[in-house]
């Protein structure tokens, strides 16, 4: 499929005493070898995922005795067992709630900060910018202990404490927002800087306020940048592991990644592997489908961080 058979170079003049190195008999063999390497890595990437998908339709007995065979009957009950008994449904909903709060908020606040930092001169501008960007290099682990207590103590503050604290989706979302600020601000600041000033000034002359300018002119203009960084944040927040492990310890408050990992331990002991694999498929299929549909944008969004 991937190997290529070399044809002689059409433009080359009739047989020469020596072949152009790299094009010719040896090249065909090399192309074949390269094709093999690529194929092997492709299989290495897809087979574990396929194995998980096939296993999710099996009985536990089939899973153990014949790992590579297809199941006799597709056991959809594995999925309902994973969804209800193993609580994957709850985790799934929890993840959606958290990401639905955290991503729009990250984008809004990140864009606001980036816009002001890139477009307005004021004392302290550089200090704030570097405080944000410096966060890129700090390992999240360093913050874990104090963060746990900051969030726990917020839960004891009157009035707002009811919505915050440990095991609160809002708290977790706000923590995601905070930890996404460095990259979002860094990326969007660079983006806003490339936007022409003339349009902004024209809008102001036309009687647009600073707020109107941002929401009605600059934000729509920044759409490509917002999409890249937004995809980056959606995947990052959806897949986050260490923060929920520290901040969400009640069983029905776990998010998907965390719940799945906990399930791998408990379900493994119980010997119900196929429900676990069904849970795994429930978790990976939506992301994989979104990725395949929008693969160009997702790849661009995820690699943009390194390239900028």
């Amino acid at each position, binding site marked *: 499929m*991937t190997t*290529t058979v*070399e*044809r002689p*170079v059409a433009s080359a003049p009739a047989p020469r005493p020596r072949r*152009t*190195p*790299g*094009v010719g008999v040896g*090249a065909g063999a090399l192309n074949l070898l390269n094709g093999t*390497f*690529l194929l092997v*890595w*492709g299989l290495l*990437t*897809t087979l*574990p*995922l396929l*194995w998980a998908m096939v*296993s999710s339709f099996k009985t536990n007995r089939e899973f*153990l005795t014949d*790992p590579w065979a297809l199941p006799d009957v597709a056991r959809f009950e594995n999925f309902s067992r994973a969804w209800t008994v193993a609580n994957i449904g709850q985790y799934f909903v929890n993840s959606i709630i958290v990401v639905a709060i955290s991503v729009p908020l990250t984008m809004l*606040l990140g864009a606001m900060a980036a816009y*002001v930092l890139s477009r*307005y*001169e004021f004392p302290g*501008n550089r200090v704030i910018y570097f405080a944000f960007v410096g*966060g890129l*290099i700090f*390992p999240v*682990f360093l*913050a*874990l*202990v104090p*963060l746990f207590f*900051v969030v726990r103590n917020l839960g004891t503050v009157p009035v707002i404490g009811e919505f915050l604290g440990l095991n609160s989706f809002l708290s977790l979302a706000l923590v995601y927002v*905070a930890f996404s*600020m*460095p990259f979002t601000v860094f990326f969007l600041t660079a983006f806003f800087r*490339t936007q022409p*000033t003339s349009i902004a*000034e024209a809008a*102001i002359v036309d009687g647009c306020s*600073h707020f109107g300018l941002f929401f009605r002119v600059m934000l729509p203009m920044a759409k490509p940048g917002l999409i890249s960084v937004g995809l980056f944040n959606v995947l990052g927040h959806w897949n986050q*592991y260490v923060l929920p492990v520290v901040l969400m310890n009640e069983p029905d408050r776990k998010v*998907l*990644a*965390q719940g*799945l*990992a906990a399930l791998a*331990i408990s379900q493994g002991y119980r010997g119900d*592997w196929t429900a676990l694999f069904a849970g795994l498929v429930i*978790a*990976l299929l939506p992301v994989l489908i*979104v990725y395949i549909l929008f693969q160009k944008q*997702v*790849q661009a969004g995820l*690699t943009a961080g*390194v*390239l900028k």
Partner: protein
Amino acid sequence: MAQRVARGRVSKPGPALQHGKYLFIVVFLLFPVGIYGLFTVSPYLQAIWISLTDWTGLTGTQTFIGVENYVKLFEDDQFMVALKNNAILLVVVPAVTVLLGLFFASMLNVGRRGKSGVQGVRGSGVYKIVYFFPQVLSVAIVGVLFKYVFAPTEAGGILNGLLRGIGLDSLAKPWLGDPDFAFWCVIFVMVWAFVGFYVVLFSAAMQSIPKEIYEAALLDGANRFTTFRHVTLPLVWDTVQVGWVYMAIQSMDAFAFVHIMLGIDGGPSRAGDVLGVAMYRTAFNDYRFGQASAIGVVLLVVTLTVAVLFLRLARRERVEFS
């Protein structure tokens, strides 16, 4: 006006923009800076202070004890195991990932030499999609999946099943239960998860190299290796460099992989321990917050050193082409 458009720095707004400026700035920065300060900056600063105290879940008070936590750390064999493993991660994971990434990317983009000059192999579009799969999955999914790939046969481990299937029974072993192999399995999974990202990253860089350069190299009779060494590599060197630093920093955070695949103790005999897991265990299992924060500070220092060193050492003249 026209020159201002292209300028990349903070541009001085005209007089019209000065009106009501400061109120606007304050309103716009209030929430981003507030949330960032509360949940990110303040915990980092507190952590540095906590690392200098004897704070545990039992004492409940934070008494300043200087660098005692750090002294204790470096006398602790388990910490040294974790530190050594982080050093292995730092060297092995970026090296293998970046090399594989470069190799596959060059195959996919300029790997084929034929009638129409140099181009990517057939099916390269499909490979670029497939290789990226692990990158979009959560580390938790990848970790759980490979926990079962490496599991003993009686728990459905597919790798052992495969080895037995092709008659290599002697190689089958409880991979994650063996102190000699557990950590290397984690490294394998990390490379597995990250290679696709670098294939895509380097592909983007290679796509922007003008094809004429390859045609010239081909006419000059340069073989594949020479072409790669003297054409492709110098022209994507910037990206390789940045990618390497990025991977080095990412590889320091093996927490989710180790926590899920090997457990909170870092596997059999704690042989697969890493700094992140050691820190988490010290803090949330043993409630030794001072000690845990000291591990966090060590992790920060290592990360900073790596970033600075790599950027300094790897700097080379940028190759321009237009």
